[in-house]
């Protein structure tokens, strides 16, 4: 059902070739192993792993989750077991499932990014691409992400680019004005594509205790509530025509995914939706295919950016 039927779903983001435009969002799919119990994750365009740092990180104090109206806040704080753990434990398993992998990495400074890249170097042929998470809103309370410092974006991208041969994706933040400038710098640094958006800074407060609902005071907001905001960011960046875009933020079903493609994203990321509908990724791929088939469109590339005027 997914393959065949004469409709082309494959997209290219520079050197990154995806058999269909649906990837998972970093941090919402782990390395794909859990969800592989619900469906064959190799049908996805790619699995984007959660962000790994050089050494393991404990993450933020709980509570880490707060549900908001049609959205959620998280302050996970990049809890992860470190890049070596990923390489030794997750990578062989997820590879054996046949999934294409985008590895998300995160560092506190350009130096840490380089150190991770050197580790990744050893297995880069097993990976489709590396995504540089320059935009986590959860590290410090309201902390500034690299993504809002365009010069840093270029520096880090360039540094990693010198080490790795596989394509780089730069993940940018909606929490600053500088998406376009940062995308330009990412391109200068050698990136192949950008992912937008990471979660939006938000908070919630308990009116009985007067304490924040999250251990880390603020968190990153994601889910259907933020879709119109994410879509506008994608639309404007696509219009600026700098690098291919993986669009994400609030995608819940295939209609949302198509909307991002039409707005100019070359691929889409499914995040929070995975928590609500464990089969979201699969259903979105099927939905896109049916949509194209009903519309008599034989190539997904024909709708990408169609709304841009």
């Amino acid at each position: 059902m997914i393959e065949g039927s004469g409709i082309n779903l494959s997209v290219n983001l520079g050197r990154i070739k995806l058999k269909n435009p649906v990837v998972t969002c970093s941090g919402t799919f782990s390395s794909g192993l859990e969800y592989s119990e619900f469906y064959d994750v190799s049908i996805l365009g790619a699995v984007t792993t959660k962000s790994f740092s050089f050494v393991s990180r404990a993450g933020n104090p709980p509570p880490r989750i707060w549900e908001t109206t049609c959205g959620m806040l998280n302050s996970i704080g990049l809890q992860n077991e470190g890049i070596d753990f990923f390489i030794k434990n997750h990578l062989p398993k997820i590879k054996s499932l046949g999934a294409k992998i985008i590895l998300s990495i995160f560092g506190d400074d350009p130096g840490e990014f380089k150190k991770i890249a050197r580790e990744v170097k050893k297995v880069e042929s097993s990976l489709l691409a590396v995504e540089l998470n320059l935009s986590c809103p959860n590290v410090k309370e309201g902390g500034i992400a690299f993504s809002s410092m365009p010069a840093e974006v270029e520096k880090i991208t360039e540094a990693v680019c010198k080490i790795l041969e596989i394509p780089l994706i730069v993940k940018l933040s909606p929490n600053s004005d500088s998406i376009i400038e940062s995308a330009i710098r990412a391109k200068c640094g050698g990136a192949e594509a950008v992912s937008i958006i990471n979660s939006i800074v938000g908070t919630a407060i308990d009116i009985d205790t007067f304490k924040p609902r999250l251990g880390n005071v603020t968190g990153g907001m994601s889910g259907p509530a933020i879709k119109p905001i994410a879509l506008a960011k994608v639309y404007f960046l696509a219009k600026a025509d700098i690098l291919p875009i993986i669009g994400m933020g609030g995608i819940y079903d295939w209609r949302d995914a198509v909307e991002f493609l039409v707005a100019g994203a070359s691929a889409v990321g499914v995040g929070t939706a995975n928590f609500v509908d464990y089969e979201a990724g699969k259903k979105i791929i099927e939905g896109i295919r049916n949509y194209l088939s009903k519309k008599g469109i034989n190539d997904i590339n024909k709708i990408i950016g169609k709304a841009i005027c």
Partner: protein
Amino acid sequence: MKLLSGEIISNEKCGKGLYKIEVFSPYICRNANAGQFVNVKCSPDGILDPLLRRPFSIYNVEKEYNVFSILYLEKGKGTKFLSDLKKGSNLNFAGPLGSSISIGDRSKNFLLVGGGIGIAPLYFLARTLIQKGKNIFFAAGFKDNNFIEWSGELTRLGINYRIFTEDGSWGDEGLATDFVKENIKKYKNYKIYCCGPRDMLISMQDILAGKKISVTALLEERMACGVGVCRGCAVKIKDGNGSFVYKTVCKDGPAFDLMEVIFD
């Protein structure tokens, strides 16, 4: 674990804001073990408020009928939606989630200590222990007599139990934990399982400190995914080096060695 849809066999009130929902699911009945839970979509198809699934312990499994049940308290909009669901309609849920409680052959005697709705997973555990021919004592504590209608189910298990209420309106006046404290010597050779509010679990830690009695607690934490991918439901667990690691309630738990849990 699977994403499932099962027919609702019944959904009945058994106390103020307390309900039991029975759902047809051969898969859950075949695969669920005590300590596990299901993650339930609590809004109609296509409606996203509330957005996230709600976790509920598996309260009972009736293999003969392929029916499992959840005992739940109406708290907010998710459980309000649940309580409005009609018999004959379908429940959208995923499960069984979380790790199973493994019951070794060595232990013979079990003390179950439940507080409020915390009795729900212990009920399934009790039934499992009965099947294995274990000796069980169930100490259940409540605020008031709201669970009195439910207690028929406990009686029918045919095990020894005692009820405590804070207001004395049912059973003995007092806390289940005070009972445990006073009688702790009796339970030296018991394995203890407890589930209930945070304060109750902290009391249990105090009571059992230094006592070398094995005690397992079933924890709750706000969840996003329920399957171990988001790290949202983190709890602090001692790691042996005097430090701690964050473990997930949804995948590593909900059952943890209570003496290893750091409440802060």
